[in-house]
């Protein structure tokens, strides 16, 4: 197999029989190919060199839940989101409709400095990881990331608002549907 130049943890092989791709994340390996015969051969080859556990179809990888069906692939971070809500004690709070107040103006030193800035940084870091399957909070997370250096009470309130938004839909994710095209589709709201 050839190692990819763009990402050294990706390996691939192209041949007349088909192609096979593999990505390694420390001890987790995700693989896909055009021919089922090849994949069992490769699995055997890997098992020969390392003690491995065949986990079958990809279902859970780095906190991301993967569901494969005839309609396509859905990725979500439901468990990750719920764990985050539990950790922050927001599981029983009322959810909000939007991740952020569109009119809110946030400034660098606004309100009282947080006594525990680490907690703020940890939360923002986790929200950042959640954007993998939640692009709807990307903007809000980008905004709160600008105050990591000296977070204030007002900034933490915005973070709490994002979490309450997540509370309303922890299982939301991204669907990669079988549309049979690679074109970009644009939706607009023109009223």
């Amino acid at each position: 197999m050839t190692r990819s130049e763009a990402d050294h943890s990706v390996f691939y092989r192209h041949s007349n029989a088909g192609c096979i791709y593999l990505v390694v994340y420390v001890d987790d390996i995700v693989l896909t190919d055009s021919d089922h015969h090849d994949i069992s051969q490769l699995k055997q080859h890997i098992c020969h060199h390392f003690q491995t556990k065949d986990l079958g179809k990809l279902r859970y990888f780095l906190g991301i839940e993967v569901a494969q069906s005839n309609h396509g692939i859905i990725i979500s971070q439901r468990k990750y989101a719920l764990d985050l809500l539990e950790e922050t004690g927001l599981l029983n709070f009322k959810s909000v409709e939007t991740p952020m107040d569109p009119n809110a103006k946030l400034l660098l030193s606004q309100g009282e400095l947080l006594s525990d800035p680490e907690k703020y940084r940890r939360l923002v870091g986790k929200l950042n990881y959640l954007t993998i399957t939640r692009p709807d909070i990307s903007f809000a997370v980008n905004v709160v990331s600008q105050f990591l250096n000296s977070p204030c009470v007002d900034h933490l309130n915005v973070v709490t608002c994002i979490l309450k938004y997540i509370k309303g839909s922890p299982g939301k994710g991204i669907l990669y549907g079988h549309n049979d095209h690679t074109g970009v589709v644009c939706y607009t709201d023109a009223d």
Partner: protein
Amino acid sequence: MVILFLSGKMVSVRLFIAMTTLQRWSLYQLDVKNAFLNGDLQEEIYMEQRPGFVAQGKSSGLVCHLRKSLYGLK
């Protein structure tokens, strides 16, 4: 000595998902057991004996000779 461990970029994983969807392939997963014991070692490295796992008796004062690299070893 720096041991690199392979950690794929999330972009690659997303690309995998997009590609498999388009080609209607399936994604599979393997988990390497005790991955941290599988690093190959090119240099000769010795390690102090760990507390609670120290050779007793006349063989005291020994160090361990590493045969495999441990995960995260620098």
